[in-house]
């Protein structure tokens, strides 16, 4: 068939129009029966990934799981949600990092009405402390999926060879780190995050254990107290003297591989990395070589953070509110949380924690550490403000000075002044 000029132009216009229209769709696989779940590249996502077909079959929907690194995920949310994106449905987010901001911006859907009446789901089963960070008054903006505690990972075999016992105090920790550091065989005594903003959460346990905090109870900056300076100094000394090269640039993405290669004797971070550190095929460290212990005690005792680190929320602008809630409900149902916990990803359901079977998949010392840390833990691991990113950069400054062996007191005083000024601005932002 030959087209005449008019037919050709008509066809071209249709094609162009269709292209233009599809371009307005907002990108991604917005159409069809697809539920978009945005998640962090995290053990929880690895766990849920394999179970998606179950949900897909039940609801006759395709779940598109998009994984990002934590910071990228955060950036993606703030750009897309600022632009009123409608094709983000379920969102895995950090209540302590972005929560206040997201709730203030009205980006999250109130799930209370959907959840409250459901007795089988039992919203009241979630730990109160964990719910506190996802709620404003009675509105529920997220359901906690992962709780994390700060623990000490150590290589049982290396401690045995050196003839030392598991460190129980900060002094023990420093001594052990010194004895375990062996440049000849390329083993470093201890590793912890050294990247300024990333390190702040791991440092929080040190701060609490030394009897200090980011802020006083009345909300004033308190990072230049003698206790805080002692905590900064200890964290910095450990890393400078016994940590891997270039630790200032390290977060878990860099430390995990080093640990897996057998180059780290002790590692303090969130318990959730346990399975990662001994993952078969990737790690040279065998499961029976890895010990887990509570954070060593400082002058104020052992006070690790114990936080609801991740939660699931629904985008307030989603076009699939009901289906999104169904997904959240499914992923956080008592059975699913129990199974996740058995796989090493601890949740926030009281009934699961009370269930003696919930920790069967993990070793005895790990189980005990989880119990102790949950009991002694502090419910936040970073300053509780709106602009958490900026706050982390400010309170992380003395940490870097400590790692570099510079004057910690001076750095803490400067940071204190900056933090106080920041808090004033931040309070205005919340309208408090």
């Amino acid at each position, binding site marked *: 068939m030959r087209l005449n000029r008019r037919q050709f132009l008509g066809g071209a216009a249709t094609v162009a129009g269709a292209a233009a229209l599809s371009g307005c769709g907002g990108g991604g696989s917005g159409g069809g029966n697809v539920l978009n779940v945005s998640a962090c590249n995290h053990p929880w996502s690895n766990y849920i990934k394999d179970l998606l077909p179950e949900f897909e079959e039940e609801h006759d929907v395709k779940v598109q799981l998009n994984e990002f690194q934590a*910071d990228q995920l955060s950036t993606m949310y703030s750009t897309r949600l600022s632009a009123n994106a409608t094709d983000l449905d379920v969102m895995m987010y950090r209540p302590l990092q972005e929560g206040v901001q997201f709730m203030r*911006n009205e980006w999250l859907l109130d799930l209370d009405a959907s959840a409250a009446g459901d007795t089988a789901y039992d919203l009241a089963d979630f730990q109160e402390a964990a719910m506190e960070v996802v709620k404003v008054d009675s509105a529920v903006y997220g359901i906690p999926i992962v709780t994390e505690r700060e623990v000490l990972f150590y290589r049982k075999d290396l401690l045995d060879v050196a003839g030392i016992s598991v460190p129980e105090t900060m002094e023990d920790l420093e001594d052990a780190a010194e004895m375990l550091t062996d440049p000849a065989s390329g083993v470093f005594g201890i590793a912890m995050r050294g990247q300024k903003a990333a390190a702040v959460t791991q440092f929080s346990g040190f701060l609490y254990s030394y009897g200090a905090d980011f802020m006083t109870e009345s909300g004033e900056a308190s990072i230049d107290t003698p206790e805080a300076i002692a905590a900064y100094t200890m964290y910095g000394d450990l890393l400078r003297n016994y940590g891997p*090269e*270039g630790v200032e640039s390290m977060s878990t993405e860099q430390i995990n591989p080093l640990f897996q290669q057998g180059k780290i004797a002790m590692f303090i971070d969130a318990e959730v990395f346990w399975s990662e550190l001994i993952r078969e095929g990737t790690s040279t460290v065998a499961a029976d070589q890895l010990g887990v212990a509570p954070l060593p005690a400082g002058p104020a005792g052992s006070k690790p953070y114990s936080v609801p680190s991740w939660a699931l929320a629904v985008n307030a602008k989603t076009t699939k509110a009901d289906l999104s809630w169904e997904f959240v409900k499914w992923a956080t149902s008592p059975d699913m949380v129990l199974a996740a916990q058995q796989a090493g990803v601890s949740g926030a359901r009281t009934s699961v924690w009370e269930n003696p079977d919930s920790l069967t998949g993990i070793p005895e010392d790990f189980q005990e550490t989880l119990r102790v840390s949950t009991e002694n833990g502090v419910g936040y691991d970073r300053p509780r403000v709106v602009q958490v990113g900026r706050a982390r950069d400010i309170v992380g400054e003395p940490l870097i000075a400590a790692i*570099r062996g510079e004057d910690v007191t001076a750095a803490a005083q400067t940071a204190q002044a900056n933090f106080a000024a920041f808090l004033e601005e931040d309070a205005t932002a919340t309208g408090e």
Partner: protein
Amino acid sequence: MSTLQRKSRLLQWGMILPALLAIVALIAFPIGYTINLSLTDTSGPASAGPAPFAGLENYADALRDTARFWPALGRTIVFTVVALSIELILGIAIALLLRKDFRGSMVARTIMLVPLVTSPVAVGAIWMLILDPNTGFANTMISAMGLDRIGFLTNPDYALWTIIGLDAWQWTPLVILIVLAGLAGVPDEPEEAALVDGASTSQRIRFVTLPMIRNTIVVAAVLRGIDALKTFDIIYATKGPGGGSSNEAETLNVLVYGLSFDYMEFGLASAILVLFFVLVLVAAVFVVRQSTRDV
């Protein structure tokens, strides 16, 4: 005005309207929006409604910020000047070597293009692996020679210089390519004449060849210079947010990114972007003026 004139005037506007609309939508609007943002106290989502007008406060804040803004500006200039100098010198030198055909010259030219077509994020990732102070190949070699390991990218004193090196590794080929194209259009006679007159090789290059490809070099310098000023990807890929824990590799672009997406300070970030835009414009005009002065 006659009907005919009016019609043709209408036709003229009709003809340029699509291009005009595209320019307004894609260039004028974003710039205007950024300038507008820079005059407000926007520190949250755009959907929250108009932010209070702040006048030039963001500009004043930026110019007063000796902790982040000025050091970042300094690093941006150092990065651009040093990287561009290395790329121009190496690029021209290698182009002169590759100018004449030799056995395997095609292979050499092809290999040379590899860094150019690699994504900067991949380049960053590869070099991070090679230069890693604990497990990287480079440091394994260095420590095998009995020397101390070097934190090429992790040591705050070396990071910026290392990234300049990576930028040069990736972008020198572009300069080579442009200069080779320029050399291809240069006739052989003037050089032969200089040779007959007894000029040495360096004299021939300096006084005969280079002046003939001067315009090409200017094009390469302007293209690469503006690009280098705006570098973001490789710095962010190798150093992460804030250009490292001590902000050791934070250029203006990295600073603006952090202010926008880590701090949500869109007003302040926009003000710095506008200042940055002016800087790029001034630099571009300066380079073009200087190099076309007496041509």
